[in-house]
């Protein structure tokens, strides 16, 4: 475990992953009931990146995500009740029912926004880092995105500017191998995505994105470097999307996937792997059961909060196009 990750942090990382997993399992269970009436993009199998990256960040550090952001919302410390209420599109939701699953937000813990346009928050995180630098804050900005974002031109424009101005920003690529149904190999000649920033001056490296301890260590060291004036960094975390692109199902029977991949993914499941490490560190079966029970209760409360929250008033439709000057 070497230094950075002690038992307490290891437990936190594990429990964060488990919370994300159980939340998304609950979403999958609820989804066929039509109580959540908007698209959901699950990150089951990818929890280690969200947990490892976000737990390494300070609360004030700035985070931007994508339409697949349940994991980072939870890991950055967002209020689970508000998240479920947002999925239910209720007035008490994280975005008052205006955003839904694809536009989660929790500015109170540094999750500034999530966008459903691939790569679109990469320059925004970069600009936020510019503000931190200019205003003399020691905050770092983090952009979360998938491998599909490297197909977009704005990725390269953003990394160039980040390097040019040496901004405190970290680009986190969750490479789950798939952009909707397209494999990286059908979109890139060179599949090792972490190298793509190096020509512009962004330091890149690739890591096992299903090893939560490695993700956390890597991110902790990267934040230290970037916060103290080091060059911006592109981290590529290799992981695997267990579920279909959108929706609660699995689709390994479809032509673009191979059931063999699923078996391999389950073998390298980040939660199972962390579970083994924690057992070696002396966490008992009773302790694991207690965590499970706490999480079950928390989710139950969040769901019942969402179900009890009112829908927005019809007048709310017209509110908020513009901010009123103060």
């Amino acid at each position, binding site marked *: 475990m070497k230094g950075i990750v002690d038992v307490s942090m290891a437990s936190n990382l594990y429990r964060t992953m488990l919370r994300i997993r159980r939340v998304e399992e609950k979403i999958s269970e609820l989804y066929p009931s039509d109580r959540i009436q908007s698209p959901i993009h699950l990150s089951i199998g990818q929890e280690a990146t969200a947990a490892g990256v976000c737990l390494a960040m300070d609360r004030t550090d*700035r985070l*931007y995500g994508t339409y697949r952001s349940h994991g980072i919302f939870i890991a950055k410390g967002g209020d689970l009740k508000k998240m479920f209420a947002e999925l239910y599109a209720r007035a008490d*939701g*994280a*975005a*008052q*029912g*205006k*955003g839904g699953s694809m*536009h989660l*937000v929790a*500015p109170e813990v540094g999750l*500034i*926004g999530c*966008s459903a*346009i691939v790569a*679109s*928050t*990469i*320059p*925004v*995180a*970069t*600009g*936020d*880092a*510019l*503000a*931190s630098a*200019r*205003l003399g804050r020691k905050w770092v*900005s983090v952009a979360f995105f998938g491998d599909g974002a490297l197909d977009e*031109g*704005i990725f390269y*424009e*953003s990394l*160039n*500017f980040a390097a*040019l101005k040496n901004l405190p920003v970290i680009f986190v690529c969750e490479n789950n191998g798939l952009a909707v149904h397209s494999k990286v190999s059908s979109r890139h000649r060179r599949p090792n995505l972490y190298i793509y920033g190096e020509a512009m001056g962004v330091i890149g490296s690739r890591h096992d994105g299903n090893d939560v301890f490695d993700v956390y260590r890597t991110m902790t060291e990267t934040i230290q470097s970037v916060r103290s004036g080091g060059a911006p960094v592109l981290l590529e975390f290799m992981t695997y999307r267990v579920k279909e692109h959108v929706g609660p199902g699995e689709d390994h029977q479809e032509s673009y996937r191979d059931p063999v991949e699923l078996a391999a993914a389950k073998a390298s499941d980040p939660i199972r792997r962390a579970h083994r490490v924690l057992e070696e560190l002396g966490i008992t079966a009773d302790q694991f059961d207690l965590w499970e029970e706490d999480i079950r209760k928390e989710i139950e409360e969040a769901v019942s909060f969402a179900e009890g929250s009112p829908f927005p008033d019809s007048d709310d439709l017209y*509110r*908020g*196009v*513009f*901010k*009123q*000057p*103060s």
Partner: protein
Amino acid sequence: MILNYGQALAQGLGQAMDHDPTVIVMGIGVDDHKSVFGSTEGILRRFGPDRIFDTPLAEAAMTGVAIGAALGGLKPVHIHIRADFLYLAMDQLLNLAAKWHYMFGEQSSVPIVVRAVIGRSWGQGAQHSQSLPSFFMHVPGIKVAMPTTPADAKGLLMAAIADPNPVILFEHRLLYYLKGDVPERPYETAIGPAVIRRAGKDLTIIANSYMAVEALKAAEFLETQNISVEIVDPVTLVPLDKETILKSVLKTKKALIIDTSWVTCGVSAEIAAMLAEDAFEALSCPVRRMGNQPVTCPVSKPLENEFYPSARKIAAAVLGMMGRETSGAAVGPLMSPFKGPF
């Protein structure tokens, strides 16, 4: 004091930056020796390279950077020396900036100012001449204004910088030759109200930006023909001051709308639709629209003259709407011809 349009913008920008240390200026060439037609003149010297900087030629990402900087507490003014370049930034402006405040439940807003210069004449051609306000009127969430006079330019820029929302200012290149009285003190011109540029009783011309200037010239000629034209300049397009436009049209009962761009789905289409909905019974003749011909802007001067509305064409249209002979509309060019390069 008498300033030209660019000087007025530079004065307003400097005063806003004095007042608010979070204001920054960015864009291609904003800090170079040409200073975007003088509109950023002196800013680098006074405020230094942390507050005004050249950017890579990356309109999309730099717009996103401006959005992020705004979310992080700065007030960026992002300048495009040609409005045509905004097409490259549409995703960031319309999918992010316009939606941010609404989509995230009013928890944060994006106070960016985008300045974009519309080219016209001297062979600017297909990709250096376009006027794009209608694209931004269509999508809720961005304020749009087109300052006409130097005093508007300064006041609206200062108001845009103070506004907590994204604001786009379209500045017509030909207006940079205009001089006018500009108060030296800092001031904001309210984003919203239309301006009556000229009072009249027989017919209302609704025209903004450079077309308001051409319309004024036409109105001077029409006065010699005993036609009294009222000119309403909707300086702000979002939010649109429907009340002032309607009040004028209900009085004159005739409306000619002149667009700085194509008429199809354009600014004039929106205003004409509004008049059809709200002033139909008062109208004594059909609403007319003028704008760019429905082709791509050509370079050749005779074709360019045919392509754009002008004081002469406006005067002829008004004479026609008044049931008068149109061949006598001998209106000379308004602006003294300028030389390139732009």
